[in-house]
């Protein structure tokens, strides 16, 4: 079996599961946020059940439109907070929270071998730690909160092998954008994407989170990585009282040698260039050398895709001692309070502010056109986020380009889409 199949079989008491099979999977963790929780709570209350199946396995995070952007957002956040308190759920308040997919792993809530469902499509992020994690809608989350299990179809797995050594400035974002550009936004529809190879071994945990995060942009049900030394080190470092580290010892952490894949796709990363996804699909990718002269009005660095410490370090490396282009706004949003504090201690925040960037408390804000950087008609933004659909960041006549923090920082300085290579000398 593949790693995804092993994890699922361990959650439905079957020795073996096969792609296409329907199962009821027990869930280890359930997640909802301020825009999906209210509907999930409403649906949950329709059951006539008074308690969630296990409050220690349900997490709610106010991150999308929080700190509250307007009165309806405040009402939604209030509804979620009230429910979380009443039910005794795991809840992170503004000032202690982060963007859910940055926050949960660093709080030690995600472990290899778990099945995690979240009312957010980027729940697949947790596959970086060898968990089977997938996004669902509010009704499914209501059912999971009530029953502690959920129906699933076992997905087939596509294996991606990234050979070669990563060139400088090339990170998880470039690998995943290249992959989506190659296979398309439905290239892994209903499948699990398994990320392997020399370049993946080399990649930091933050880079792996970025890749798993965007599996959904290829239509995948989950993105998953084998558990290696880096995973174990991360788990140890972020161990919390929520769950004991020893769970790790009980799980399978690799696909079997004879695992069956629907496809095996190999890439040689050694000649990879930074990638940029053009409007209006994440699959419209071009290598940076073919981008041409594209002037920008805004750069956003952050989100559940690229709001981690490694991302901010790369941005700071380029921004240190330089200035944001006078005709451009650069908005930098650390993914969690912990990331924010670490960045502050390392002096990164000082670099950003001295460069002329705006730095904000964690929020999903601009990524989905909520607030903190909404675009006007005709404006162009390069963002380290995950989607560039029409109107995603504001006006339907605005444009969003997706790229890595390195490209974002270089572009913020030059006022146009630029390669970090331009600063080599």
């Amino acid at each position, binding site marked *: 079996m593949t790693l995804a199949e092993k994890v699922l079989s361990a959650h439905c008491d079957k020795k073996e599961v096969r792609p296409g099979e329907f199962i009821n999977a027990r869930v280890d963790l359930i997640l909802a946020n301020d*825009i999906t929780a209210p509907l999930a709570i409403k649906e949950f209350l329709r059951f006539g059940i008074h308690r969630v199946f296990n409050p220690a396995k349900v997490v709610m995070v106010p991150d999308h439109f929080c700190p509250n952007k307007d009165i309806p957002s405040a009402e939604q956040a209030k509804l979620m907070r009230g429910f979380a308190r009443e039910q005794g759920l795991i809840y992170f308040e503004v000032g202690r929270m982060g963007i859910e997919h940055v926050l949960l792993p660093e709080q030690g809530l995600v472990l290899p071998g778990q099945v995690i469902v979240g009312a*957010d499509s980027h729940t697949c992020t947790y596959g970086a730690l060898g968990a089977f994690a997938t996004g669902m809608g509010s009704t499914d989350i209501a059912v999971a909160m009530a029953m502690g299990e959920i129906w699933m*179809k076992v997905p087939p797995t596509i294996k991606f092998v990234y050979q070669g050594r990563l060139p400088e400035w090339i990170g998880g974002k470039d690998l995943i954008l290249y992959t989506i550009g190659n296979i398309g936004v439905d290239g892994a529809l209903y499948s699990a994407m398994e990320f392997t190879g020399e370049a993946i071994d080399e990649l930091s945990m933050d880079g792996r989170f970025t890749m798993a995060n965007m599996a959904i942009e290829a239509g995948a049900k989950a993105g998953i990585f084998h558990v290696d030394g880096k995973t174990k080190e991360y788990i140890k470092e972020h161990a919390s009282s929520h769950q004991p580290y020893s769970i790790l010892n009980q799980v399978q952490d690799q696909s079997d040698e004879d695992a069956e894949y629907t496809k095996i796709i190999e890439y040689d990363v050694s000649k990879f260039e930074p990638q940029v996804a053009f409007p209006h699909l994440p699959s419209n990718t071009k290598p940076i050398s073919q981008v041409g002269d594209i002037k920008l009005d805004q750069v956003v660095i952050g989100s559940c895709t690229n709001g981690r410490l490694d991302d901010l370090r790369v941005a700071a490396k380029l921004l240190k001692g330089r200035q944001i282009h006078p005709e451009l706004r650069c908005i930098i949003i650390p993914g969690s309070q912990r990331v924010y504090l670490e960045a502050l201690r390392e002096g990164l925040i000082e670099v950003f502010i001295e460069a002329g960037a705006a730095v904000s408390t964690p929020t999903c804000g601009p990524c989905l056109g909520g607030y903190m950087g909404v675009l006007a008609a005709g404006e162009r933004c390069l963002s380290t986020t995950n989607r560039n659909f029409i*109107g995603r960041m*504001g006006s339907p006549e605005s444009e969003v380009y997706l790229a890595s923090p390195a490209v974002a920082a270089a572009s913020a300085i030059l006022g146009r889409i630029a390669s970090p290579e331009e600063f080599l000398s």
Partner: protein
Amino acid sequence: MSLRAKQSNLKGKAIKLGNNISTDDIIPGRFAHLRSNLPELAKHILEDVAPSFCARVEPGDFLVAGRNFGLGSSREHAPLVIKMSGISAVLAKSVARIFFRNAINQGMPVLLCDTDKIADGDELEINLSDGLITNLTSRPLPNKVGSGEGLLSSGARLRSSKTPSFMLAILEEGGLIPYIRKHKDFIIRCSSEPY
């Protein structure tokens, strides 16, 4: 429409859309402030990609799309506003998986078929149990070089993916919550039914 009627035959006209219609296309994020007011939210359905949709749609109609319909967010508002607009089923070549789950959970059927065979405005009849789609529109026989090539002729049938019985049962009850309320359990206890 009664739940029983849902289980048997659906009738309506096809409203066609293209490939890769995202959840942001279905209901743009800028209207998220209306998310607790579904009737108001539904007025903005597909307004960036199919501005005439709202005026054209009548109760019972089918939304007929190309590949990867509903990609993007897990926000359940997407199938909810489609259902609220009067659409009785979504037909597409392929559908994003979260959208698919959300639609079934909200009691809205989703059928996978070769939608190139359906023209915008075609009157269709759909039998959910066997997945057969019948064209009720009278159309001149397809001419080899004409524009009607490849389209279903009048009375012709198109086979779509068969909806697994546990999903039909969920649809029959009007969604997953009413289903579980009634049965106090899931219907699939490790079914190996292919799909």
